[in-house]
């Protein structure tokens, strides 16, 4: 009884825990095996037409993305110039590392996933985890080989956000069971509408600034309650993503020191 109090409140065992949880790695590997095998089989025996279709789709995507990138570079430079004029420091590009989600199902009532990068790959507690479309969660514990990521949908997770439209700050918390998030403690007169995009505000110091968190799906102002009831659909594909990005460090750099040119994508197969 005392053990879980010590662990959850005082963090007494974090180092012992990370050493012990190495033992669990083989179990996770075994549990992930059937899925890996079926994935491998479908990948190997995919027929030619499917591959061609997929290739075409990816190529179109690539074309669209590179077109957008051209514009983005321009905008980035402009943004930096303006920020230089204001004298503020800001970092537009974060370095990321690619990790893969180990295909095991954990407790469905408390959403978490396991990724295949751990202490050996310099993962740290509180590291932000993104996928291709938005923020997924943050690292809570790791062992040398793998780490646990708490998802946005977990009821014990909260993330500071900002409305993309007007900069209104709020906190988004998970609701656990279903795939929706909620905003607590926004007053009835808050300027928020259905369809508003929420991005990370970077205020907590954990998440980097400006990544999409979700869109507002319903806004209710219940009579007799102090705060509005707002639900948010996460931008990340929390249930289906396989590859995730770990943000390396979100130290700000001074705008005057110039642009960070190459978008480094460190992927050490590890």
């Amino acid at each position, binding site marked *: *009884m005392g*053990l*879980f109090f*010590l*662990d*959850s409140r005082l963090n007494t*065992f974090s180092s012992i*825990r990370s050493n*012990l*949880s190495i*033992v*669990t790695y083989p*179990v*996770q590997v*075994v*549990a*992930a095996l*059937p*899925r890996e095998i079926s994935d491998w089989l479908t990948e190997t025996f995919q027929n030619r037409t499917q591959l061609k279709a997929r290739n075409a789709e990816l190529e179109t995507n690539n074309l669209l993305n590179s077109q957008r990138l051209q514009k983005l570079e321009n905008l980035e430079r402009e943004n930096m110039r303006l920020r230089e004029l204001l004298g503020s420091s800001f970092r537009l590009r974060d370095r990321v590392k690619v990790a893969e989600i180990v*295909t*095991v*199902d*954990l*407790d*469905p*009532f*408390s959403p*978490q996933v*396991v990724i295949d990068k751990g202490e050996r790959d310099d993962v740290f507690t509180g590291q932000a985890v993104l996928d291709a479309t938005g923020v997924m969660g943050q690292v*809570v*514990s790791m062992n040398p080989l793998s780490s*646990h990521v708490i998802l946005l949908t*977990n*009821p*014990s997770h909260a993330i500071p956000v900002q409305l993309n439209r007007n900069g209104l700050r709020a906190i988004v918390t998970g*609701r*656990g*069971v279903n795939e929706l998030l909620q905003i607590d403690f926004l007053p009835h007169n808050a300027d928020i509408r259905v369809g508003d995009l929420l991005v990370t505000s970077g205020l907590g110091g954990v998440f980097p600034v400006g990544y999409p968190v979700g869109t507002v799906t319903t806004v209710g102002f219940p009579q007799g309650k102090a705060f509005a009831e707002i639900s948010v659909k996460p931008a990340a594909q929390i*249930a289906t993503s396989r590859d995730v990005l770990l943000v390396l460090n979100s130290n700000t750099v001074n705008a005057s020191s110039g642009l960070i040119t190459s978008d480094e994508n460190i992927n050490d197969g590890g």
Partner: protein
Amino acid sequence: MADNRARHGGGFIIASIFFSIVLMLIPLPDFLRFFRPEFVALTLIYWTMALPRHVGVGYAWLVGLFMDLVMGGALGLMAFSYAFIVYLVLTFHLQLRQYPIWQQAISIFSLVLLLQMLLLLTSPRVADWNFWLPPFVSMMLWPAIYTILRSVRRTFHVS
């Protein structure tokens, strides 16, 4: 060799528990996720019922600790819950053995429900109607699990 097995046989218990942990982790389609029965708890309950001298509170506690590490919850959460359930089974194992299998299944329902409640009370989680699913599915699967583990016990003379 056979004699040796009869005295130890603990390897089969550990193997079955390992297998049940793997079953807890195997990815299921999204709509089935909440239907997963508490395989580990069921396996522990069976062995406690069958071999109360072999498998007890300490055993359950260790398995629970391992589950905590696997699941990434607070350390000791599952350990405490499993130990508690197994303590109840130990207290009532003589009655439980006498029950017909459907009545055992009902006891299983209440035990797994208790487990769920302990977890609900001690960790941040939100539950609605699907909170009832794991106990229910565990109850439905108990006859099958009971038969399988009994045949394992008899074939390999685990005692």
